[in-house]
């Protein structure tokens, strides 16, 4: 299991990276932490002819608390984001999800943007980005554009970046005051690839009712999906057991599930229902992550 040969580029600046992508775009892949890309290369399931490493591009490793959200540069490592104080206090869903990503040694190297760009249907971070309407900041030698998460994820292992673009950064909006969040997933093992998972943030009004729910589920052969109908149904309601169960049922009927040898489609669908229900109970009971205002 040795990778096929490739040309290697290691620019030391973002401009350099974008220049390489302009030149080699179609044939090139970006190497950040490599935790998803390199296994596929070792298995020779991917054989890019040019690899553009951003690992020497220190200017991309920032984690910035901006006014409208936490911005993680393309080289921000998952472990650093998971332990960033602003992230912990103001982006609890992101941090909760990061606990589930690989092992410590994978998160030490893996990047937040890398996982998003890889767009694995069973990866945690795309679900979070979708639930929170994160802004994906795409850059190319001709300029920058902001791609909403919903437009960024096209399908399994497929994003909407142009060949010459890279995901330069991602902006996660801060959790609103009064919100609580929960990321749960379940797999055949207690840690590792999930069968299904749920990213949920609920903002409660002073009357205890759900003012706004944000919900994304993963578990199909396709990329994680936002459960907008469930969000609408939950808005304005009291989240009790019955409401949670109904929301689970509704979500399960909306998602795109597929069976494989890890779990059949019926199970995945049923699991989505249970996980949504349990996540809602957790946030309603206050057991889940709470955003703190600073």
């Amino acid at each position: 299991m040795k990778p096929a040969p490739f040309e290697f580029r290691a620019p030391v600046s973002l401009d350099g990276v974008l220049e390489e992508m302009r030149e080699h775009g179609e044939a090139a892949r970006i190497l950040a932490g490599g935790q998803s890309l390199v296994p596929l290369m070792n298995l020779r399931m991917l054989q890019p002819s040019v690899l553009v490493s951003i690992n020497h591009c220190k200017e991309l490793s920032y984690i910035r608390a901006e006014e409208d959200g936490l911005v993680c540069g393309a080289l921000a490592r998952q472990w650093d984001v998971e332990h960033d104080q602003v992230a912990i206090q103001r982006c609890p869903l992101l941090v909760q999800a990061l606990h589930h990503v690989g092992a410590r040694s994978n998160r030490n190297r893996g990047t937040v943007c890398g996982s998003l760009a890889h767009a694995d249907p069973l990866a945690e971070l795309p679900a979070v980005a979708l639930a929170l309407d994160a802004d994906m900041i795409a850059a190319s030698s001709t300029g920058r554009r902001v791609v909403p998460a919903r437009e960024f994820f096209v399908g399994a292992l497929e994003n909407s970046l142009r060949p010459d673009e890279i995901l330069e950064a991602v902006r996660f909006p801060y959790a609103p005051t009064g919100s609580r969040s929960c990321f749960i997933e379940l797999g055949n093992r207690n840690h590792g690839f999930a069968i299904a998972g749920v990213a949920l943030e609920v903002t409660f009004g002073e009357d205890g009712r759900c003012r706004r729910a944000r919900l994304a589920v993963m578990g199909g052969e396709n990329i994680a999906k936002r459960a907008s109908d469930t969000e609408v149904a939950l808005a304005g309601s009291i989240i009790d057991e019955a409401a949670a169960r109904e929301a689970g049922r509704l979500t399960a009927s909306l998602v795109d599930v597929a069976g494989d040898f890890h779990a059949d489609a019926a199970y995945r669908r049923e699991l989505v229902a249970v996980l949504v229900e349990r996540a809602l109970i957790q946030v309603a009971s206050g057991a889940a992550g709470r955003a703190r205002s600073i």
Partner: protein
Amino acid sequence: MSQATSLRKTDVTLTINGKSYTRQVEPRRLLVDFIRHDVGLKATHIGCEHGVCGACTVRIDGRTARSCLHFAVAVQGAEIETLEGLSADGRLAGLQKAFHDAHGLQCGYCTPGVLLTAEEFLSENPEPSEQEIRAALSNNLCRCTGYVNIVKAIANAARDRDKTTADPAGESRK
């Protein structure tokens, strides 16, 4: 500006266990092969080459990482530490003793990766619960021990480490 290299071999310089090594390798050369075959340090093992089993765990710039998931050229200039280095400078002495006493290894193939994972974990969680230890090992595959004595060894090492710090004179140590 780009440090351009191509299919051709290129000079890669890494500091491994405090010593600098320069070798001419292809860009696709995996870090684990650089360490094992180009430098000749064999404590880092290959178990799966797709980042699941943890046998190839090393430290890159002070943190654990899977050396099968890195190209040597992409970590150009990094500080790498392997079991040989951590073992030689005594940083693992407590863990090694605990694994020996608790029979925390059988075939020994996963052991280097487990030791590096445990060392990083204990340095940040001095008083771990059993569940925390198990979670820390969640991506280190062992097919021999059933993890029972690995968990025990790490718990014992934490306890003994705790004693050493609480009692710097070491009077309570026998």
